[in-house]
């Protein structure tokens, strides 16, 4: 049998039926076979046959009669066949064919309406053998490889101007029929599309280059993957390429550099500590300043949706959510910023959606191993210079001699620690900072392997990270396993199974992570012992045990904080009919967090020991069942998704703690303690979510497109009447560069241009599972007085039950919802070398949950209700410019810039101004102004002469203050807003409406440079125009004016960098700060350094280089071959190498909380230098 004979046979048998050329037909068959792209329609046709020892040809004729199928075969093929015995009644065609060919030496394959016969020999071999003899048909054999010589499977090859197209197989091979003057178009997502003239060549090797053009990228928009070109939504994408040589624990720290419109504020430099990801402005009105007061997005990792609201209470160690994911396993990150894409995530998409896809297995000729190794060194960061020993004493004594009258200098007010310089308890030079800091070392290892065929493949990745923090006994250890297997069964079914395991161990230094009850977060920042304003004086004697305890590593002190997470997920896809697929995904996530803590008796004031243990588990089951549909009718393209989602969380939580006398060797809660010394709790909670979602997209000729997305969600957190809500969106797109007036005129400048517009509504849930219920408190005894160990919980001996008057249920508590407009444009110029994306948006968030004080007659103090509105609007732009693709050089510059304005639109009680934070308030909300304005005095000037003070014309009394009726030179003078010639809270402590809590613009600037195997990468981000509050310095200096001797007993920083008021005239000359006058018992104090004055407001401008790395890739040459490796990459990188900031008064302008306050607690984001090796073999 040879190919020519087949052709001949075809010509004979089928000529009459064929309308197009014979060559074409056979080629089509070949291509179909080669690529397994087989349609499935019509197989359900029924036939009834009865044959007794009849020829195969007779059978064919009969089947052709009963169906609309025809057979394609060569005569030679029939020659070797056996006769058929068969009797079937109304049976499926496929079943019948199986029976017919069961014992035949030939097989069949179905293509469209044709049943093609083929040898049972492996088909590829058949084609190769016959390739040379197919002279009538011009069959081209091709092989597609990437830049590194790896085969590219699944690439699309088509003949320009025809409908013929094939895909490359697992080895990158393809066969296509084409004439000499045809042009082949080879395209594959992520690679530059190539056009190749066939010419006389019969075998073509094609190299595809990775696309520099982001428009070719595939983006995930929720249950669908589309080309970025086709998406009408505002999406920022990051590929693994951009992440691979940056040795971070969590990718969240890189998001600011790689996108626009995304802020990642961080309050601590501790490894693995929480970063917040804020997309397009904050909408959180909780007033919290512990890192939870910022709005957070929905995370979708391989289809598993997690909102941080699901994890509240769980993430109590302040560990970053994304730290549970090894950055080495990430394939791509897509950030959905507007409402149109996120609408399909309905109730949880209001703050944007971050979709992370991890790496998968692939069809490879041989298994591939990838090993990366990373070693890093974090030197002790520059610290606040502290005066130690004699220097400290001298500086403090100088203050006393300068400011104090001699009656105080000689009196009992003189702090003993300073005067008693001979006392060994006060005569030390303890450098506390030396105790707390160390050089940190880090190691990261990652091994991944992948392999398999197109039909079944796998990827397994193992990771180990150990990062030491620069503060003693802090650090982060992580073990990860990520594995997936992919299988194709038959022609229509695909399955992917994933397992992820993550174990983390967080070292939290000396802090006690135990929380009695599960509601609050453990604030790591407050337990860092390094806050310069809280360091003890260097003069004190400190015992060895205390030193060890301060370091947090005392041997008898136990402090572990471990989190384990297991994720199992199975995704299946079934092709039902052309273009229609059924998809299911079932997920199970199990989190456990465990904390053990023991504080030994020598460290405790009571001399007893304290032990605690807490465990928190979360089980999450979720499922998505959805159908996908694609249909192309001429120029009309339709795509649709419709599905159903359920999500269920179950939380079980318990904690136990005990304190009492006993041996320190026992570090757990056991019979060492009496029953009454042990306290504990347990808790079970659950929540669930159901959603019906869909998306309908239509485009005409890929030029005009419109998309509708819709989600109807129900949540158990809401009352039955308000449980469901609808979240619709619509978006339109116009690729105007495809219009002829552009194409014909300026296509050499503008390659691509698209306008996009979208509108949609998204929701957000709150974290409390049972907020809609009123609750009763048990064990209420009504005692308000101190009762030592007696726990009063009854009245008349009967356990008392009362309403929990701190909260009241609201059955119709409902969604916080966000309405968002987006207008965008994507432009590509100069052969795609310059890409520009621009988006403008308006995001109106309403029904935000807010605590409102209730009227006293109710008995209830306050409660939460959907009451507040916030608006964010602005624009963002990202520019990527491939400057230098000349010769071996390739330079790409990219930069993003965005501007977001934020203001409050609605407050309860007719928009009454809100002051929060207790007492006279520390922050406030006002309609029309941004969130989180500080409550402050305005420091008008520093007083030089008393004569400067205004005089009350009615009484002749000069301006006075509540705290000190005579204002002295050197005091900061606050504006007397209410004009009562008295500075006090009542009329003069106000919201600082001039304060700018949000920056004018934030952005990023990145450089990517390649030369041959070398590459250089530098990422940076910046923020300009916001105000921040220098809380750390204020707290530090405030100690000096609060009386007592606390100031003397705390450490003293070297203040020579600041100027203080010392003599009249200094105020006018513009010194930094008022006079530093230590106040002791008996002196009245004005509290010069009170925190709530705008003296502390400084510029928040900074430009931070987040990463610089340089590397060399070896992928050919003798070394690579000798070592039998495919590729080796050696690189070095520096994290956080440099930061510029406008204010020299704060340690790190980028480390602020949501209210703009700098913590300055001594845990900086430190510089880390790493060396890395990445080998593939």
């Amino acid at each position: 049998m040879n190919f020519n004979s087949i052709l001949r046979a075809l010509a004979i048998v089928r000529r009459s039926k064929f309308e197009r050329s014979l060559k074409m037909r056979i080629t089509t068959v070949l291509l179909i076979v080669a690529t397994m792209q087989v349609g499935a329609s019509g197989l359900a046709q029924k036939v009834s046959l009865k044959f007794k020892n009849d020829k195969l040809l007779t059978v064919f004729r009969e089947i052709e009669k009963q169906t609309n199928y025809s057979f394609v075969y060569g005569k030679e093929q029939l020659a070797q066949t056996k006769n058929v015995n068969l009797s079937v009644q109304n049976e499926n065609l496929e079943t019948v064919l199986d029976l017919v060919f069961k014992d035949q030496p030939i097989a069949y394959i179905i293509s469209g309406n044709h049943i093609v016969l083929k040898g049972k020999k492996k088909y590829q071999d058949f084609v190769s053998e016959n390739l040379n003899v197919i002279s009538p048909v011009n069959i081209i054999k091709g092989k597609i490889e990437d830049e590194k010589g790896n085969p590219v499977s699944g690439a699309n090859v088509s003949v320009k101007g025809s409908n013929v197209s094939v895909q490359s197989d697992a080895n990158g091979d393809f066969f296509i029929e084409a004439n000499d003057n045809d042009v082949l178009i080879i395209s594959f997502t992520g690679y530059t599309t190539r056009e190749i003239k066939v010419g006389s060549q019969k075998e073509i090797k094609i190299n595809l280059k990775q696309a520099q053009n982001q428009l070719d990228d595939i983006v995930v928009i929720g249950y669908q993957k589309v080309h970025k070109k086709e998406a009408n939504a505002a999406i920022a994408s990051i590929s693994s390429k951009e992440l691979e040589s940056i040795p971070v624990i969590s990718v969240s720290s890189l998001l600011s550099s790689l996108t626009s419109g995304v802020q990642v504020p961080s309050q601590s430099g501790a490894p693995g500590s929480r970063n917040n990801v804020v997309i397009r402005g904050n909408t959180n009105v909780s007033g919290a300043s512990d890192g939870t007061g910022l709005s957070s997005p929905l995370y979708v990792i391989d289809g598993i949706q997690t909102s941080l609201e699901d994890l509240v209470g769980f993430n109590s160690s302040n560990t970053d959510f994304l730290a549970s994911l090894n950055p080495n396993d990430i394939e791509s990150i897509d950030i959905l910023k507007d409402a149109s894409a996120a609408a399909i995530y309905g109730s949880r998409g209001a703050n944007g959606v971050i979709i992370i896809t991890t790496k998968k297995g692939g069809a490879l000729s041989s298994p591939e191993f990838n090993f990366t190794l990373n070693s890093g060194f974090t030197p002790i960061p520059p610290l606040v210079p502290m005066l130690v020993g004699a220097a400290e004493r001298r500086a403090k004594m100088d203050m006393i001699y300068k400011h104090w009258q001699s009656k105080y200098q000689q009196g009992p007010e003189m702090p003993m620690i300073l005067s008693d310089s001979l006392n060994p308890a006060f005569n030390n030079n303890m450098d506390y900072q030396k105790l707390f800091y160390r050089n940190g070392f880090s190691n990261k290892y990652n091994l991944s392997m992948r392999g398999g065929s197109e039909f079944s493949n796998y990827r397994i990745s193992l990771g180990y990270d150990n990062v030491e923090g620069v503060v003693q006994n802090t650090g982060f250890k992580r073990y990860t396993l990520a594995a997936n297997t992919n299988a194709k069964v038959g022609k229509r079914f695909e399955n992917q199974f994933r397992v992820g395991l993550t174990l983390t161990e967080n070292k939290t230094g000396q802090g006690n992570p135990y929380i009695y009850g599960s509601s609050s977060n453990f604030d790591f920042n407050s337990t860092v012992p390094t806050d310069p304003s809280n360091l003890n004086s260097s003069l004190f004697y400190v015992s060895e045990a205390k030193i060890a305890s301060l370091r947090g590593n005392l041997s008898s002190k136990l402090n572990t904080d471990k989190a384990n997470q297991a994720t199992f997920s199975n995704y299946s896809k079934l092709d039902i009919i052309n273009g229609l697929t059924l998809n299911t995904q079932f997920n199970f996530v199990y989190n456990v967090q465990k904390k053990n803590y023991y504080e030994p008796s020598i460290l405790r004031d009571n001399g007893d020991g304290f032990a605690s243990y807490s465990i928190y588990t979360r089980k999450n089951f979720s499922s998505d069942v959805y159908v996908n549909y694609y249909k192309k009718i001429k120029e009309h393209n339709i795509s649709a998704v419709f599905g159903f989602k359920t999500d269920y969380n179950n939380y079980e939580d318990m904690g136990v703690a005990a304190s009492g006398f006993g041996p320190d060797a026992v570090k757990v809660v056991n019979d060492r303690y009496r029953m009454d010394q042990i306290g504990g709790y347990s808790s079970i909670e659950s929540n669930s979510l159901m959603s019906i979602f869909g998306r309908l997209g239509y485009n005409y000729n890929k030029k005009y497109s419109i998309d509708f997305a819709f989600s109807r969600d129900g949540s158990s957190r809401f009352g039955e009447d308000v449980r469901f809500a609808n979240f619709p969106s619509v978006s339109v797109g116009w690729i105007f560069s495809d219009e002829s007036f552009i194409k014909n005129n300026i296509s050499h400048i503008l390659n691509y241009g698209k306008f996009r517009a979208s509108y949609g509504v998204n929701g957000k849930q709150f974290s409390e599972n049972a907020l809609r219920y009123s609750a009763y408190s048990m064990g209420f005894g009504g005692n308000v007085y101190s009762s030592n160990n007696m726990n009063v919980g009854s009245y008349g001996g009967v356990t008392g039950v009362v309403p929990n008057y701190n909260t009241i249920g609201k059955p119709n508590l409902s969604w916080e919802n966000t309405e968002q407009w987006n207008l965008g444009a994507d432009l590509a110029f100069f052969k795609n070398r310059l890409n520009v994306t621009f988006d403008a948006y308006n995001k109106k968030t309403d029904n935000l949950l807010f605590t409102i004080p209730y009227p006293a007659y109710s008995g209830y103090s306050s409660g939460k209700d959907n009451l507040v509105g916030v608006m964010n609007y602005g624009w963002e732009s990202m520019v990527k410019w491939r400057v230098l693709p000349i010769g071996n050089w390739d330079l790409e510059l990219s930069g993003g810039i965005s501007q977001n304005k934020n203001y409050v639109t609605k407050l309860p009680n007719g928009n009454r101004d809100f002051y929060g934070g207790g007492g006279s308030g520390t922050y406030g909300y006002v309609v029309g102004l941004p969130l989180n304005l500080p409550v402050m005095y305005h420091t008008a000037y520093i007083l030089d002469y008393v004569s400067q003070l205004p005089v009350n014309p009615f009484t002749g009394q000069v301006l006075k203050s509540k705290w000190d009726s005579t204002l002295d030179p050197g005091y900061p003078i606050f504006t007397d807003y209410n004009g009562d010639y008295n500075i006090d809270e009542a009329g003069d402590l106000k919201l600082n409406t001039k304060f700018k809590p949000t920056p004018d613009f934030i952005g990023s600037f990145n450089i990517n440079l390649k030369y041959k195997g070398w590459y250089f990468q530098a990422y940076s981000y910046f923020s300009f125009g916001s105000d921040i509050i220098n809380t750390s310095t204020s707290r530090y200096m405030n100690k000096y004016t609060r009386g007592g001797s606390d100031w003397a007993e705390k450490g003293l920083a070297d203040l020579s960098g600041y100027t203080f008021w010392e003599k009249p005239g200094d105020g006018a000359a513009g010194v930094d700060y008022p006079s530093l006058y230590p106040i002791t018992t008996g002196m009245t104090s004005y509290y010069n350094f009170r925190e709530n004055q705008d003296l502390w407001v400084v510029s928040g401008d900074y430009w931070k280089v987040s990463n610089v790395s340089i590397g060399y890739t070896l992928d050919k040459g003798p070394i690579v071959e000798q070592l039998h490796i495919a590729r080796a990459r050696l690189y070095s990188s520096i994290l956080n190498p440099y930061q510029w900031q406008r204010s020299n008064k704060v340690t790190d302008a980028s480390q602020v909380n949501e209210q703009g306050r700098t913590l300055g607690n001594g845990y900086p984001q430190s510089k880390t230098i790493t060396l890395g090796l990445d080998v593939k073999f």
Partner: protein
Amino acid sequence: MSNFKINSIMKSNTKIKILTIGLVLFATMGCSDLLDQEPMNLATPQNYWTSESNAVSALAGDYALLKRALTDQAAFLLWGEFPARTFMNSQNSFINYIESGNYVVPYSERTMDWTGLFKSANWALTIETKVAAMPDNLFTSIDEKNRIIGEAAFIRSLSYFYMARVWGDVPIVREVIETADQLVDDNGYTIGKKREDEFLVLDYALEAVNKSIALLNYSSPGSPRWAIQANKASAEALKAHITLWYASRNNNNADMVNQSIAAASSVINNSNASLIDYVNEGVAGFDNMCKGASKTGLFEINISTDTNESYRITSAGGTPTGLTLSGPFFSTLSGNRPLIDPAYYGPAKIIKADPGRANDVRRILFFDGYNPTLAYTVNPPNTAYLLKYSQKSKDATSIDPLAYFSESNILIFRLADVYLLRAEGNMRLGNWDNAITDINMVRSKAGAANYTGAKTLVALTKCIFDERALEFVGEGQSAFDRIRLNYYPSPEFPLEVARQAANGYFWPVHPNVITADSALIQTEWWVGKTTT
């Protein structure tokens, strides 16, 4: 999914496939009860009212709320004792504010906040409503069910009565508040409630106490819950108080006076309580009374270590012990201690000026430091102090030898109170002899001579006020007695006419309470005087 399944799906026709998809989708959609996640950590209004013991616990909680409202910052003494300036001249610099007529007391500002009493009143109304709706068969008897409702009604009545006496006009909550919808309207405005006329408040309290009387039974000393929870006699005593207060505020409303006398008589006849004979029972009788649940008690707040419902005795200013006791009870003289000042109204006008009290044992029993031999004088240097909160027991868990728990109940109503109320009612009706009989009954138990003064309203008013002031010293009655009897003798009590006209004897409302409720206005006298 097994291969078998896949094949079968593939082989079936399109209709079946679409049906399958439909089935898969609807099978998952069918479980819409997935969204009914009942809270397992919470007792809620929906799941709580299912048994008698739950109802009993709710009632206990309500007493505890009342206890908290009255004892927080020692409010019952700040409201009911110190403004009257009868015996105790406080040395606590902040209590001095009250004695000088300023009820904005630093560090005790919660005494201006009525939230605590609304808590006990509202919870009472909730209990009344919820228990009434529970099926009778959940209770051991219908009497038990009625008892729970009746006691709750008593607490509601007493809470409002306190508010009427402290603030006059207050809001009235007539519905069970269970959801935020009742407190915040759809536009985000809190729903205010204005202060209603004091007579409406008293009517509301009266209605509740009548309900309570109808549902409760009498009890007797030694029975469980005696005095520390309400019985029918407690409710009648409360009714006698309310109606008499009503009459006083309403031109001596005769109907109210008659109701008061009837209620008082019923207590005296039916309560099974008896007066303490201070003369014969001496210290033991007094101690029993103070410990509480004694034969004379009608309603008290329970303070006892027996049930783990006590507190540590301290000299802190916000506690009954701190505001009444001193050294040598404490190791040192307390800076908060009150002076039993010989020149003060009580020592001077009640004891010294009344020769009939030569043998009145109460000045010895009730006070430490009243000189037993030198009649009417206190020991120098004025170390006398009140003993009503001096019952104590050792805190075994503390190594401090001076660590004591209090064992003194807070006495709200007792039988002597009812006798004197009936005397006052009769006085208001001009039944001088009946009034004097009751007065003498009380005096006789203390060894004081029978009343011999004039049978006039003025004379008897002073007599009754004085008798009550001594008998109930430290029990938080005197200040209310002054208002009810309108007894402000000069020159000690030059309370301005202006102040009386503007209800200046009522307390200011806490500014925070006013801020959170747009319908509220400050008590007239205190407008502009409360900025803290």
